[in-house]
């Protein structure tokens, strides 16, 4: 394993410290327990947003802490949900009396730890609502699974819900925006090569030179199936078909198209994929009215990408466009 790290056990602590130093104008870092919150403290009367999960998906979530998005982010160990303690500490630090919304990616570990944290925070007098993000169409949602995974669409949810909180919506309204965004969002990804978890020292899976993992998760979980490498246009067509079909996108719909890099994919490849996806949607009469391209929800240095489509209404569009000032997404400020 080759990595630019010191002791694998220190990866998260050191990275969060560096993040705090580099973005001292935007965030304050708590080191024990580890969480990242917006500079400036809790805003009285404003709903606060807390998200978190295993590390290794940066800039998610700490990169989205700031005006117009998250109030705090709680990074767990690499690919492992944080425990309840730091979630509770972050909750108490950012609550401005109007309640706290947890944005939780749908993994058993995240769900259970945020659940426990919510119980503990409620015991401290904070009103907590939770929204589960489960946008990954690679996983069948049925009685026979833990439900769909939360992947790249999480960014969209954090953006629209954050903007709703910023404009002064109450907790129920912010939660409604978050749930509406989840309901309007679907994603699916593909990997050419897995990332390497520092303490594991080995890739999550190994693919042959002509194989790709189709429907891969953001923790290097093996995906839906392994298929032979194809030209990216064909791969995009498959991903998009699964998304469009599941979301029920039809001619005339306005959508946000998001091509997300998994961390080790050159920018040119993301834009080549974007081009194809935009063309195909256009041919279907779908209006791509907003877009996002880049490494936003990564899986360490995984080579691959995911596609996300969110069906936009006027309000979601307005919330997407609202000013935001975070380390990884900034506009209008």
């Amino acid at each position, binding site marked *: 394993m080759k990595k630019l790290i010191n002791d694998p056990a220190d990866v998260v602590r050191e990275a969060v410290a560096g993040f705090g130093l580099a973005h001292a104008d935007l965030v304050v870092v708590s080191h024990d327990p580890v969480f990242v919150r917006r500079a400036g403290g809790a805003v009285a009367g404003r709903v606060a947003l807390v998200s978190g999960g*295993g590390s290794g998906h940066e800039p998610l979530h700490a990169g989205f802490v700031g005006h117009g998005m998250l109030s705090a982010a709680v990074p*767990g*160990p*690499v*690919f*492992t*949900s*944080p*425990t*309840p*303690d730091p979630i509770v500490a972050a909750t108490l630090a950012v609550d401005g009396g109007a309640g706290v919304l947890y944005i939780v990616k749908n*993994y*058993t*570990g995240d769900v*259970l*730890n945020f*659940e*426990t944290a919510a119980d503990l925070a409620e015991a401290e007098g904070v009103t907590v609502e939770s929204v589960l993000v489960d946008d990954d169409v*690679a*996983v*069948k949602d049925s*009685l*026979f*699974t*833990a439900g769909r*995974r939360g992947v790249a669409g999480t960014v969209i949810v954090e953006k629209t819900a954050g903007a709703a909180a910023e404009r002064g919506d109450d907790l129920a309204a912010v939660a409604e925006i978050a749930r509406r965004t989840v309901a309007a969002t679907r994603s699916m990804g593909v990997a050419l090569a897995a990332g390497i*978890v520092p*303490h*594991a020292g*080995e890739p*999550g*899976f190994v693919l042959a030179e002509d194989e790709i993992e189709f429907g891969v*998760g953001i*923790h*290097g*979980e*093996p995906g*839906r199936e392994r298929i032979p490498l194809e030209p990216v246009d064909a791969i995009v067509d498959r991903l998009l078909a699964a998304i469009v079909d599941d979301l029920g996108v039809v001619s005339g719909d306005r959508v946000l198209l998001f091509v997300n890099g998994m961390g080790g994919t050159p920018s040119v490849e993301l834009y080549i994929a974007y081009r194809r996806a935009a063309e195909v949607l256009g041919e279907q009469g779908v209006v791509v009215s907003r877009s996002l391209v880049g490494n936003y929800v990564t899986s360490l240095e995984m080579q691959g990408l995911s596609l996300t489509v969110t069906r936009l209404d006027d309000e979601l569009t307005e919330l997407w466009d609202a000013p935001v000032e975070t380390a990884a997404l900034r506009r209008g400020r």
Partner: protein
Amino acid sequence: MTLDSTWVRAWIERTAEVVTAERHALSELDRQIGDGDHGENLARGFAAVRERMTELPDDAPPAVVVRLVATTLISTVGGAAGPLLGTAYLKAAAALGEARELDSDSVVSLLTAARDGIVLRGKADSGDKTMVDAWTPAVEAATESAGAGADPAAVLRSAADAAALGAASTEPLVARKGRASYLGDRAVGHRDPGAQSSSLIITAAADTAAESTKES
């Protein structure tokens, strides 16, 4: 013949040793059908448990020791296993109550409460390819063995044997809970890491009980 808080400490200590020794094997199982961190998660958690145990008074009753394990795992493991095993120890501590000496029935209720805690949090059924597939056979075997009049060490031995078989029994299964459920048929042929670690935990209980019994 009964078990006391010395056994509880020995059990926890042995568990810490075993999950540390097996951390790579457990993570490797998890890498096959999950995200490859299960061994690391437990090793981290039990290292913290070991450290905090030194702060307990020598005469702490079994329930206090087990509750410390629970809260430590909850606050240090994370992932799915942290809250699940944490709840298991939390419910087990509640079941132990004030008891300082554990007879065969106490051991059965300890195991039962632990299993029930996991099911309460995780909502898994038997056969879902989770740690429940180690705990439930263990509870059943312990119940039967205690009913037949076996001593605590023997009860735990039968639980451990059943847990080991239960862990192995997850191999042919398709998972319906946790990360492995994303894999569908591709999980077949792989042992569930949580069932394996739970089998190690119960085996550590049996092994240390056997030694306690010899010494006493």
